[in-house]
């Protein structure tokens, strides 16, 4: 019976949205559904779909751990992050950064421009260039669409049935244009499968080569933003020195290659930038000033 209802709703949603061209919040719903005829258009997930995924996955992670309460701290991290993101090929995304109130050390990237960093990791950085390096690595995951590609590879969720139902709710949502309306998320229950996909993706992590690529791309993004080129190296040195058995590192080490290996692979690229005389700033004092809330 439940199946029948779901199929009817899906049919209704599809008919409703395909019968006339309508847009809500600049999302062309007809196109969204057309795209769903195959899983993706031309092998790529559309931006609209990416944003829906990103909203939902971020909401789930925020369900695991609260946001850090200090607004100034959140603003500071957003300023650094946005400045670095501006140097990327996807600078037009609505980039959002936040600090999580956890003593564990970690950072996360979600599709469409969401980045999270824990208090625990922030406490172990020494300068703004190190913060920029961490954020640059996460930004690189998003510019390279690593998580989206992993989802496509897994092909474990019936993306389109979920998104079609969301699309019909978005249509029904009120037209108060306050940025990206999230009313649809309140009304729409995330199906178990999307929830499960989020749980799996962020506890299993990405492929090693994606992590190494994000290190290399992030290195250049931070340098473009005029930060010193050694930020990420120092972060790796710091992580390498913490007892790997420590529970604060558990999830990070379960989802990433060893920091010493990352540093070893990154070194030739740092040397290349050295040869190009790329200097950059550490901005240590500004970091100390802005992280007093930690």
């Amino acid at each position, binding site marked *: 019976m439940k199946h029948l209802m779901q199929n009817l709703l899906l049919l209704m949603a599809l008919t409703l949205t395909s019968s006339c061209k309508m847009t809500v919040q600049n999302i062309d719903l007809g196109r969204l559904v057309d795209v769903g005829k195959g899983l993706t258009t031309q092998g790529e997930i559309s931006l609209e779909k990416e944003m829906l995924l990103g*909203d939902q996955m*971020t*909401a789930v992670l*925020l*369900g*695991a*751990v*609260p*946001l850090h309460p200090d607004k100034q701290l959140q*603003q500071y991290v*957003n*300023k*650094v992050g*946005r*400045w670095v993101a*501006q*140097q990327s090929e996807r600078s037009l995304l609505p980039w*959002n950064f936040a600090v*999580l109130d*956890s*003593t*564990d050390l970690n950072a996360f990237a979600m599709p469409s421009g969401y980045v999270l960093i824990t208090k*625990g990791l922030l*406490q172990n*950085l*020494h*300068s703004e260039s190190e913060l920029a390096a961490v954020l640059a690595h996460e930004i690189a995951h998003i510019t390279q669409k690593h998580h989206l590609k992993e989802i496509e590879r897994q092909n474990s969720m019936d993306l389109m049935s979920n998104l079609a139902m969301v699309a019909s709710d978005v249509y029904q949502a009120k037209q108060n244009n306050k940025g*990206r309306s*999230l009313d649809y*998320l309140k009304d729409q229950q*995330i199906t178990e499968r999307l929830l499960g996909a989020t749980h799996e993706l962020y*506890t299993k992590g990405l492929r090693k080569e994606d992590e190494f690529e994000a290190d*290399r791309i992030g*290195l*250049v993004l931070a340098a*473009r*933003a*005029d930060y010193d*080129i050694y930020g990420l*190296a*120092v972060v790796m*040195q*710091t992580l390498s*020195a*913490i007892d790997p058995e420590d*529970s*604060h590192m*558990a*999830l990070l080490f*379960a989802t990433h290659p060893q920091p010493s290996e990352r540093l070893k692979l990154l070194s*030739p*690229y*740092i040397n290349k*930038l*050295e040869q190009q005389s790329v200097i950059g*700033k550490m*901005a*240590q*004092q*500004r970091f100390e000033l802005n992280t007093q809330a930690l």
Partner: protein
Amino acid sequence: MNVKYFWLGKVILLCIPFSLCASSENGNSSGIIVKAASLQERPQLGAKAIAQLVAEQKVGILQREGGWYQIAVDEALNGWVKLLSVRFEKSAYRPGNMGVSALWSVVKSGHSDVTATTGVRGLGEEDIKKASANIEALKIMQGYEVKPQQAQEFAQSGKLKARKLAYLETVK
């Protein structure tokens, strides 16, 4: 604040306990030389070499300037070494003992109980696996968004100037 005196103060504070007992127990950043390297007078290529360091040699890390660490070899000798020539000595984790507060750990008490901090919240596999969507938090997070113009002003006030730089060819 005069940067030079800021660092001078820190170095003096660090040298006191370091000279009494060179260990990492009180949170000094202790380092180990990774490969043979020269200790230089200044953080610059071509600066005068004042000593030769050997692999596995223990040193105290005082501060960083770009691609160089200022290290203390013993009470009498310190100088600069290339960043990648050093690794940090492994130590038991205490919140923030590796980071910006590490230089202060000499001044504060050496003990820092992990569980003593308020609101200790782990973020492990289980926490993620049982999480469900928190829409209110997502809205708050979106409220922190900084627009490009603000980011530009922030960069300017830190004297950061965007530069064009191509991604690097993959090294084989």
